[in-house]
């Protein structure tokens, strides 16, 4: 299977981020997260509850951007907020910036009073990160994304949550950061971003160069960082023939 693409590896890594979640609402933002969540539902975690990204819970697991034939529930925005507070949700959001402490920014770049670049606004990131499991997906890993300190804290990392008190820390759970180069958690020393695996063909030094802060490593292992696993033959068939036959994933993570 030498034709396995980086996007395929990312899809499997994202699926792995959802495999131990049990019966919760998986909320992917963006194309690869949607693919990874659906892959998890067809393999490691069939109990995942998924939606059409609009207002329906889908009983089936349709290809990207297709409609399912069977609906199993209704999830308009008001109920999304209910589920956020209820906690049975794992959201994978994008991140224009993510910092050493796992804080995320989708609000604006520069000074809040007059940003250099206004982005979306904080959306649901502040609420997500103190209520339900949250992961991030970064399709283009670079020092401009992985920064020492985010300009504006939208998503709250574990250190800031703890500083804000027990009400903020109780349900703060930043689970994984998956980029086009590697997989991370936020369990390094002092709640910092820690390198868990590098995608096949990527070196630890390449990840370091593309990261604007000092990465934590799994203690005792030094630079001996494992490779992110390859998708299984079954997963490759599901990705290529069932979920994404149009290869939309390669628009987000191009074939090298």
């Amino acid at each position: 299977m030498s034709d396995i693409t980086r996007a395929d590896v990312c899809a499997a890594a994202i699926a792995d981020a959802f495999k131990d979640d049990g019966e919760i609402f998986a909320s992917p933002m963006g194309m690869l997260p949607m693919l990874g969540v659906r892959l998890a539902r067809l393999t490691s975690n069939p109990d995942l509850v998924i939606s059409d990204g609009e207002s329906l819970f889908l009983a089936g697991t349709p290809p990207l951007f297709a409609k399912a034939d069977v609906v199993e529930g209704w999830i308009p925005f008001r109920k999304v907020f209910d589920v956020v507070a209820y906690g049975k949700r794992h959201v994978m959001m994008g991140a224009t910036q993510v910092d050493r402490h796992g804080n995320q920014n989708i609000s604006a770049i520069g000074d809040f009073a007059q940003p250099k670049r206004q982005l979306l606004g904080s959306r649901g990131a502040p609420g997500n990160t103190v209520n339900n499991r949250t992961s991030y997906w970064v399709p283009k890993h670079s020092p401009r994304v992985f920064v020492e300190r985010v300009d504006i804290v939208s998503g709250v990392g574990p250190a800031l949550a703890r500083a804000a008190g027990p009400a903020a820390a109780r349900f703060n759970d930043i689970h994984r950061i998956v980029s086009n180069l590697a997989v991370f958690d936020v369990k390094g020393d002092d709640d910092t971003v820690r390198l868990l695996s590098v995608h096949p063909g990527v070196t630890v030094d390449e990840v370091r160069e593309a990261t604007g802060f000092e990465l934590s490593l799994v203690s005792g292992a030094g630079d001996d960082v494992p490779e992110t696993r390859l998708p299984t033959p079954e997963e490759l068939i599901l990705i290529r023939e069932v979920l994404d036959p149009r290869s939309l994933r390669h628009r987000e993570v191009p074939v090298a």
Partner: protein
Amino acid sequence: MTKAPRDKRMTIDEVVAELKDGMTIGIGGWGPRRKPMALVRAILRSDLKDLTIVSWGGADVGLLLRAGKVRKLVYAFVSLDSVPLEPNFQRARQSAPGSGQSIPEVVELDEGMFQTGLRAAAQRLPFLPMRAGLGSDVLVNNPQIKTVTSPYDAPDGTAEELVAVPALHLDVALVHLNRADKHGNATYLGPDPYFDDLFCMAADRAYVSVEQVVDTAGLTVDTPVQRLLLSRMMVAGVVETPNGAHFTTCTPDYERDEKFQKAYAAAAGGSDDDWAAFEERFLSGDEAAYQAAIQAFTEEQA
């Protein structure tokens, strides 16, 4: 003679005549979905100024900013979905304070806090507690938002300090639904009610524009009663504005006009001349002129 509830039908211009400079106006819908755009366009044509706009924002916010109508903006995001970043919102936020193009005051909230603020207003409470905002820069950039300590112990014996989300009280709410009767009972027929009932209940007065005014019996003739989102007791006025949510979605009556949205975004993100040309073509006349211009645009694009 049987007495009947009031007939609240109004024109677009009669609604706008009810608005005053400096008012706090909540705009229903969500981003680029089911926005009361005909009413927003009427505000653009008016002399209204110094408005506080409260919106999960889309082009409603972008247009009002570009027209210089906004003194204060309360938002959690502003997006056109298929065009993620709203160019007129970006332009305003990135402009130097005092330049005349910036927004004098902004309140950026988490999108769930926004709902909680409306809920507090709808329940006539000063605030409601929630976790969202804790640890984030929402609290740093909005020092007026305070926290409150729970009078009850959490399971671990600590007293949790939560965000006291202040009520988002509105002078007026503007919403767009699919159908209403002349009294203000109204149904949404699309996938999501958004928060239009909450906007109406958070406001002193609410005006609903609809695709079609039907008689009361017609509201439920082929529609489940659960789709009756607004009761007339929440509604001060009803306006029939066919295609009035254009260019946002009004499912199932119509979807978003993606071609027009693209043209809007290109003009908003382009030169001053680009914007002037767009304004001249689409926004210089009344609602009928707008709809005629849209029709011509659609035919051109076909």
